[in-house]
């Protein structure tokens, strides 16, 4: 792989922060196959993208979750010592309300292995999870509950993390319907 020039590249001048108001998720154990990481990329651009899609086992599917605008964040944290650097990807989100569905999700997710697909403001997607490692629940940094004042925002926040050697763009599809055997 050769290096190439990295110029300012903001198509249509767009470079908005934050993430979309939906994240996609599923159980890590329900994944049939994962997209592949670049093995012998021709250039640095190819070295930053996954090939293929997450494919679910027959009868299983991915789901979407609504999050309140400006509460979601996808954060890339660099960790490790010299010659041992890697990343921890963080997803923070807030779902409004304390309905049965979100509580049931939190109950199931807190000790289980998941994966997430996060979309940024330009529509570029990132996958949290691979064949080796899932995304896991870390806690609720922005809290959860009813709030104190009547003007407070009731709901549940959550943080999920995924440890990875590299960060990639996900260019696959996200089917929100059950996979079949054929």
């Amino acid at each position, binding site marked *: 792989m050769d290096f190439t020039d990295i110029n300012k590249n903001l198509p249509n001048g767009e470079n908005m922060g934050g993430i979309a108001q939906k994240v996609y998720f599923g159980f890590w154990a329900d994944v049939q196959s994962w997209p592949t990481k670049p093995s012998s990329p021709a250039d640095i651009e190819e070295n930053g993208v996954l090939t293929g899609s997450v494919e679910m086992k027959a009868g299983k599917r991915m789901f979407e979750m609504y999050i309140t605008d400006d509460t979601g964040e996808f954060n890339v944290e660099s960790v490790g010592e010299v010659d041992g650097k890697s990343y921890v990807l963080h997803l923070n989100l807030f779902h409004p309300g304390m309905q049965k569905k979100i509580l049931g999700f939190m109950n199931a997710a807190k000790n289980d292995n998941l994966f997430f697909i996060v979309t940024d403001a330009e529509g570029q997607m990132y996958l949290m999870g691979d064949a080796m490692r899932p995304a896991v629940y870390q806690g609720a940094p922005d809290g959860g509950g009813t709030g104190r004042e009547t003007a407070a925002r009731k709901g549940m926040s959550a943080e999920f993390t995924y440890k990875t050697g590299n960060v990639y763009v996900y260019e696959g599809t996200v*089917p929100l319907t059950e*996979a*079949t055997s054929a």
Partner: protein
Amino acid sequence: MWQKYFKVVKIVPGRVVIPGHGTVDFSNENLPLELIKELYENDLPYLDITPEGKEVIYNIKPPVPTPEKKQPGVVSTPGEIPLKDKPDYRISQEKEKTFTKNPSPVKRKRRKSKKIPDNNE
């Protein structure tokens, strides 16, 4: 309309988030054919083409059964019935073989029975 030419595979027809196209609901039979064609040509793994789609969209006709080829080395002489047009006698020959007492192709010579001299001669 589009479902005449393409079919959804690997998933139950429903919503799929596709980069560059947003969410496409494949349970909707009124999706534009051009969109489906574009997704199929971009190798979306959840679309396959029907035989009718091959013919109408890509003008690929279903294969016509080819006539039987002559066996190499077998040349028919003028006036001879071409090999492919010759009636197939194999079945009837087989049947005959089944009911022949002596299936051996070598014809046995009939023994000449000794003629008993006629005393009247």
